[in-house]
């Protein structure tokens, strides 16, 4: 028992870094995704093309491949610029998670029917005003559970940066195993800590999804096509 308390104290330090890592990434990814999603519905073709290319490219690159390339390739330069491995990790995760989230936000924005754009322009609203006063108020509620699901994905994906020397919980666990030679016990505790962190988020996100769909009058009217669309979006929402 005494041993377990010691382990937990060590792993808790890593868990704090994991939470900081995920929180910083989430905030930046939401900003990046918001800008990209607005670009993708903007009237300017250049912006739409940029957003499409960005999302396509960064959704294709595995997180680990980008993390290792940056770490090996630019490690010395980043250190000399005073950028820590933690900040590098946040940067890498943001670039990729932001692309996934942008695609989900875009779906949320495009679920607003064309007639609403037409109606807005017929009463003389410009693009900016239409987005602010008509589109966003409707697109934001469904974006909330989506963002929460993204937070879960980010927490899980943050374990990958253990491989570029960021002392989050997975790396701390590996160091602990190197001393104790008890991988099953240590990894089980780590898995339980991840579960304790993620299950409440997942519960809240499910409740919110139900509340939002009730508000929008979607309950009991979900046809095959809607379900399919949800599925595909979910599948796309996952990274690796």
């Amino acid at each position, binding site marked *: 028992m005494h041993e377990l308390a010691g382990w937990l104290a060590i792993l808790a330090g890593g868990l704090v870094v994991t939470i900081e890592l995920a929180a910083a990434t989430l905030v930046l990814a939401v900003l990046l995704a918001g800008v990209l999603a607005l670009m993708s519905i903007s009237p300017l073709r250049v912006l739409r093309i940029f957003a499409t290319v960005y999302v*396509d*490219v960064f*959704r*294709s*690159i*595995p*997180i*680990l*491949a*980008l993390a*290792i*390339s940056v770490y*090996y*390739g630019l490690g010395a330069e980043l250190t000399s610029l005073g950028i820590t491995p933690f900040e590098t990790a946040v940067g890498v995760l943001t670039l990729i998670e932001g692309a996934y989230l942008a695609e989900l936000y875009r779906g949320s924005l495009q679920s607003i029917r064309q007639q609403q754009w037409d109606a807005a322009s017929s009463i003389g609203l410009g693009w900016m005003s239409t987005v602010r006063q008509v589109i966003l108020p409707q697109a934001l509620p469904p974006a909330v559970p989506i963002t929460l699901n993204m937070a*879960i994905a980010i*927490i*899980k*994906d943050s*374990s*990958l940066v*253990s*491989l570029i020397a960021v002392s989050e919980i*997975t790396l701390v666990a*590996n160091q602990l*195993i190197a001393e104790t*030679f*008890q*991988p*099953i016990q240590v*990894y*089980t505790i*780590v*898995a339980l800590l*991840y*579960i304790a*962190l*993620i*299950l409440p988020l*997942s519960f809240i996100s499910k409740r919110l999804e139900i509340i939002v769909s009730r508000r929008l009058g979607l309950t009991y009217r979900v*046809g*095959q*096509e809607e*379900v*399919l*669309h*949800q*599925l*595909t979006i*979910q*599948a*796309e929402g*996952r*990274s*690796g």
Partner: protein
Amino acid sequence: MDVVQNILPYILPGALVTVEISVGAWLVSAILGLILAVARDTGKPLITFPVAISVEIIRAVPQLIILYILFFGLGAAGINLDSLTAAILGLGIADAVFSAEYFRAGFLTIASTQRDAGMSLGLTRLQVTRHVVIPQVIPFLVPPLLNSFVGLMKSATLASAVGAPEILYGGRNYMETTGQVAPAAVAIMVLYIVATVPMTRAVKALEKRVRARTRA
């Protein structure tokens, strides 16, 4: 040109292993996912409850931890999986809980009156699932399962963490041997973009067609 020639022996065998891992993990995911979904569809609490709990638990654990438990954890317990098997099983299991959700949501799209009709003909619940429900939901499952394959191709890079010689492993070898990072990094990323962007696009087009067909 020399760079390209030097890098190919590191990258190409790795790319094949990546394909091997993603195909293997995809099969594990689809088969296990179907089993989990059918188990949940039985409606018997003694079966559905443990299945639901394990799905929630596995969904909350990072793929890398699952992979480590299978490779290092089982190894310490005397069950030695080689890195390739551990990667296929680990990534497959982690993905199966998502596949199970696709199957389950797919099952839910079939009106319950069809199930009643099947059962009134004397078919068992499982027979209805097999002969009535699954044939109708297959078209809806193709796009999400293809997306899941694309995701697994990217997740396959995690296998390098347990020493499976996939593409990133080959790339790192090149980086460490030559001291040059950029060529390997660019080669890996370009290959991933070339391989996955058309697939993702095709899945989207396919999804639209499936949806259009049900509307007609």
